[in-house]
């Protein structure tokens, strides 16, 4: 049974079909929520809210082939909604320990992953949402803008700004061995 047929069945109230669809996407969306919110509990709230919206509104989706981007949008918006309800206080927790595939230079990969983690912490949740949706969920920036309900120009500038901040966070470390960040890089 292909995804389109599963979606159509779920639109007619088939819970099993929806369970299959949800199982296919929940791991990645939960990870995305954790990356954005950096809090397991908040991430769970956001994913639950996103999936509940998906289930309730699924009959209104006209194109079953758009189910995946539609679901991503719902969970992304839930992340932002959870943040707004939560307020602006900083949230920081450790992510799930790395359990990835073996690589030839594992030490280097782990170091880069830790640097990336460090850099992501320097971003606001809204900035992290742009980075995560774009690089992790593979959404084009126009889709990111629509999912986050922000103008495309804001999404582009937020994306640019986020990368600049990450660059500063990584390259401006005292122990960074490469050339320092030059003035004006954030402009």
């Amino acid at each position, binding site marked *: 049974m292909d995804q389109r047929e599963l979606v159509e069945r779920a639109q007619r109230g088939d819970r099993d079909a929806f369970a299959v669809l949800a199982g296919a996407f929940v791991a990645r969306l939960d990870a*995305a929520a954790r990356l954005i919110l950096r809090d397991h509990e908040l991430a769970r709230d956001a994913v639950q809210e996103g999936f*509940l919206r998906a289930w*309730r*509104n699924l009959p*209104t989706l006209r194109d079953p082939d*758009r189910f995946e981007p539609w679901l991503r949008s719902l969970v992304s918006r839930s992340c932002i909604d959870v943040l707004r309800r939560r307020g602006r206080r900083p949230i920081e927790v450790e992510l799930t320990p790395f359990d990835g595939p073996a690589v030839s230079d594992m030490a280097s990969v782990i170091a880069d992953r830790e640097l*990336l983690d460090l850099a992501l912490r320097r971003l606001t949740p809204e900035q992290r949402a742009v980075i995560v949706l774009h690089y*992790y969920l593979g959404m084009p920036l126009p889709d990111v803008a629509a999912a986050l309900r922000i103008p495309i120009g804001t999404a582009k500038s937020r994306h640019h700004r986020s990368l600049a901040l990450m660059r500063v966070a*990584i390259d401006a470390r005292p122990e960074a061995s490469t050339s320092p960040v030059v003035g004006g890089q954030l402009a």
Partner: protein
Amino acid sequence: MTAFDRIERHLPELIDELAAAAIPDYFDTMLQDTTKARQRPAWSALERWLPMGVVARPLPILPVPWRLLAIVALVGLVAAATAVYVGTRPRIPAPFGPARNGVLIIGTADGDIVSVDPSTGTTTALIGGPTIDAGPYFSNDGQRFIFDRGASASGPTRSYVANADGSDVHELLPAGRALNWFEWSPSSDRALIIETIAGKKRLSIVDVANGRSTRLGLELDVQAAAWRPIHDEIIVTAAAGDARTFWVVNADGSGVPRQIPVSPYAINEPTLSPDGTTLAYATWEPTALPGRIRVVDIDAGGDHAITTVDGDGAIWQSPQFSPDGTHLLVYRFIATSGSDPGGAQLAIMDAADGSAITMGPVSENPQPAAIFSPDGTKIVADYPALHATWRFDADGQNGHEAPFSAIGGAGATWQRVAR
């Protein structure tokens, strides 16, 4: 290549590893809870009836920026409220320098104070009644004036303050206190006053609203005082025998007064340039030419005479700076016998080189009283001995008798208005 360059090249893969996606432990519970909810009927969604692109693609219309709109609306409201508030408040002129001409008010022979149109002589009563009210003197902000009130023309007077339109008349000081001198502060909410207490003249600062005064503890025989423009200082005139000395005093009276180095033959009170840098004054020297006008830089010194010696033995006195500080309005006395001054004529004098042009009629004592208009283009002069008031252009030209007459030689004051 920097560390970030290396990371950026593999950003999707690295984020993927960092995310460590896995089926969350709450999945089953979430699924059970979620699917208990009722689904919306398909027909209930407006999107269902719209073209596919509206649903499947990002909205072509930007979301309404409610927060921005709220901020813009709020800023607009604040701006409008500010504009209304500012618009309803009187515009206040700078305390010194040129200003726009407001109303000219005078004391009349009937003992009233009226505003007068300088061109037509049309008057409007401001302060009336059976009392003798005279000597109005506008504050620097043009919002109120002080005047003297007495029961009769020759009896003692007391000082009163009124709004520019003649309203809110109240006595300046508590009963029993009489003034020798009064000068408005730059902000016009206070004034310098000199009272005679136990036979000595004392300088105080008085709050015009409530009459509370603070005496400045100066060991000087104070004769006059004025706020130094653009400086937080007071220029005090003190008696030194028949002559006068000039002192710079902190506005609150603190510190040690600094004497301004001037001629030992200085007389009367000086005049201050609108920028507060220069003091001009008259001398009475025991020579064949007793009366001269001298100027001095208040901070740098350099006291020197600017009047030139002419052939008729003229005596220059009572300088008064123009609003722009370029000229002095002076009296030119003409000695009739020896050093005894006789008739006087007004003159407009260049404050830099002392060159002067006389204007108007020659008058015997009492000497004429004259003022500049706030914009510096006109001069109004009252000649008590002639029972006439004259108007001139500020260059001394186009003089003619005005269609009104002030009284007492100190009867006219011109309101300063914001430009």
